[in-house]
């Protein structure tokens, strides 16, 4: 029996087939992610190419509005950039940052969670106390402070070049406790089980036991958590960019697009804020709903909060 057959017989696939909402969400998400990956092929313009930007095209409304034209389907922003293309590229940045940040926090959190949970003692106490402190401050605030400090360290003029890895770092570093706690909880539960005892008696090293035996059993909570965390990371990025601490204006993410349109929304150019806002909500919503579905299927014990 190969892996595919195995998967098709699994409970996950069975529940998925019967859940129309989950299917729809996955479809939407797939479309969005594929659009983002193939942005250069799909987007009608390249928003980073100055040749394609003309200030004289600024603030053209979407095609269906009275003053809109077919040239720019969703209108243009105040710089004269095509909204549709800018949004697609912006979503790409949002997704990259979201995935990158989650990968970083997952690696950090899982490692800390595994080892702290398995070894216990002072190491455990230290990391969990640190997690407490950081969690009580909330990721957004930690991120705000970190970005303020880091911007100053690298120098403001250079900041534009390193904005993406920087945001990944900020959001990633500020959210590892979520993983650490969840994984630690599963480790604590697994540690007492017989197979771990058996492995220990058989003389396996502790890192072998942790990685080969315990880790696979923590996968389902990690999967569920990761889904929610991607949505969270995308939202954090948007919030930081909205406050002007995120992506620079010439390479906007969805959050910085919303921010740049904010001051224009009252004077009639609603689409510069509303359309990226809508896209952001759809993206986050579809991820969140999938996360919900996975949670229902696996029903893991996640750390609450």
């Amino acid at each position, binding site marked *: 029996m190969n892996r595919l057959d195995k998967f098709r017989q699994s409970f996950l696939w069975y529940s998925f087939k019967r859940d129309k909402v989950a299917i729809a969400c996955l479809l939407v998400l797939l479309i969005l992610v594929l659009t983002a990956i193939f942005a250069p092929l799909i987007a009608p313009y390249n928003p980073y190419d*100055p040749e394609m930007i003309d*200030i004289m095209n600024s*603030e053209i409304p979407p095609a269906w509005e009275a003053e809109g034209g077919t040239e720019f389907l969703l209108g243009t922003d105040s710089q004269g950039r095509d909204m549709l293309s800018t949004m697609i590229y912006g979503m790409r940045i949002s997704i990259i940052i979201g995935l990158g940040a989650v990968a970083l926090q997952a690696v950090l959190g899982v490692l800390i969670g595994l080892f702290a949970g398995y070894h216990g003692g002072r190491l455990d106490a230290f990391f969990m106390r640190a997690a407490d402190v950081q969690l009580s401050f909330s990721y957004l605030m930690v991120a705000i402070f970190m970005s303020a400090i880091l911007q100053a360290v690298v120098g403001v*003029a250079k900041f534009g*070049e390193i904005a993406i890895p920087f945001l990944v770092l900020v959001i990633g570093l500020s959210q590892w406790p979520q993983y650490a706690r969840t994984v630690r909880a599963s480790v604590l539960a697994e540690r007492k089980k017989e197979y771990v005892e058996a492995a220990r008696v058989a003389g396996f090293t502790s890192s072998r036991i942790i990685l080969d035996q315990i880790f696979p059993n923590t996968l389902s909570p990690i999967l569920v958590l990761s889904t929610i965390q991607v949505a969270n990371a995308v939202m954090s990025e948007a919030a930081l960019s909205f406050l002007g601490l995120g992506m*620079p*204006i010439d390479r906007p993410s969805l959050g910085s697009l919303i921010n740049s349109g904010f001051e224009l929304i*009252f*004077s009639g150019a609603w689409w510069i804020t509303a359309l990226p806002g809508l896209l952001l909500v759809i993206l986050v919503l579809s991820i969140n709903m999938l996360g919900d579905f996975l949670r229902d299927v696996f029903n893991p014990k996640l750390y609450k909060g």
Partner: protein
Amino acid sequence: MLSRWLQGLVSSATGFAHIRAGLKSQEAIGMKKHFMLTLLLVLALTGLAHAKTLKLAMDADPVSLDPHMQLSGGMLQYSHMVFDPLVRWTKETTIEGRLAEKWERLDEKTVRFHLKKGVKFHSGNELTADDVIWTVNRLKESVDFKGIFEQFNSPLKVDKYTVDIVTKVPYPLLVSTATYIFPMDSKFYSGKDDKGMDKAAINKTGYSFANDNLSGTGKYTVSERQQGVKVVFEAFAGYWDKESPGNADKIVLTPIKNDATRVAALLSGDVDFIMPVPPQDMDRIEKSDSVKLVTMSGTRIITLQLNQNRVEAFKNPKVRQAVVYAVNNAGIAEKLMKGRATVGAQNSPKGYAGHNPDLTPRYDLKKAKQLMKEAGYEKGFEVSMVAPNNRYVNDEKIAEATASMLGKIGIKVNLKTMPKAQYWDQFDLQVADIQMIGWHSDTEDTGNFFEFLLMCPNKETGYGQYNSGNYCNQEVDSLALKVQAETDEVKRTAMLQKMEKIAYDEAAFVPLHWQDLSWAGKKNLGIESIVNVMNFPYFGDLVIQ
């Protein structure tokens, strides 16, 4: 409006309470009725008396009550409300007397000012020549103002109401500089306060007597102040200027930093007057029935400086010209500024002595590419650029637009924008190859632009302090120095215009535009007659119909 409606509901509810209370005792009804009528009458009368309150929203409120604490538009605006200057600018950029009744030039270095008699400070003290002398001496102590008053000696008292203001060298701009002299109440600000500190002390970062207390000769006193939240100005009963038509008895100033929110507050009737007005909302305000918009061409030029010390290519005038030709500043003025700016090709706006009418904007992409080719930079190069994001109207968007315009001639720009508090530091360090700066001449004269922006940077003389392009031309420098002492207007004008021409030909900097000044308010306000290019509406003269 829901809020109005709810307020109405509450007041009628209290009305019911009155009536119900009245019903309890039949005898009391007559009295109650009488009482309520009186109450209504009183309300109506106080309503009338308070009708002349102006609710004002600006982007910021005064940072201190001490007019010498900071030299900024906001503080000068405040000074015009609670202090009065010796002389002030009119709408036509001429100078009119305020506390000085008349003045005459005695020699190249001296102007004699005759003060109005019987002018009272808020404290009740009378304004005398001593106050003027005291104020000028204090200005020379102020970190921010001492630059402007560098040339000034301590003034000489002639008699109680006459004072000679003397400069160290011949100084043609003496009278315009006197617009910065807002006499302070020397008796009020002398001595020790209850903390044992000198009342005259100027402190930028902590407590000082003058930061929290004031006595001026202006129309208003400050009756309530919550920094960053609101300032209430109340008319001073003993104000000297009985001829002023102004009738606003009370001004409530609320700072609303966000442009969109400020406009929304005006349109919803929460405030009566706003300044500045963001260009993107001007059309909407003009179309509105209840409010009006007043604009004037401004005198602050927005420019980009190309740093020749950082980028070899910018040493080549052809490359600099290519940059100027590539920047569609007319497009920026039309689209980003919504036509609410005057396209520039030089520093001096129309009306300035140095304004050279022959210099016209030069956007031409083909020519720009051609120039890049001629200079040998056909393939282009990469540069960094910084700009503020809360200093000038739409500064961030303008920077972004110019960055992509330069991209079209192969100059790849890495742009970073930041709040002004961080910006000027970076500007001084010259962290980027292209830097944005807007400049308004404090003296309303062309020379000032060159002294700060285009003369060769020199730490000792202080010239070229904001010349981050490091443009340096000995001819311009010597002209700029000669102009300072030239009192012959014709010669002076010719020299200033020549300076502009050289800067234009050599593409010393990238001129963008002069942003319009703008104010908006309810239709019943006589805004037109109180505004001026200095952007300090004289609220004391405001007529509310």
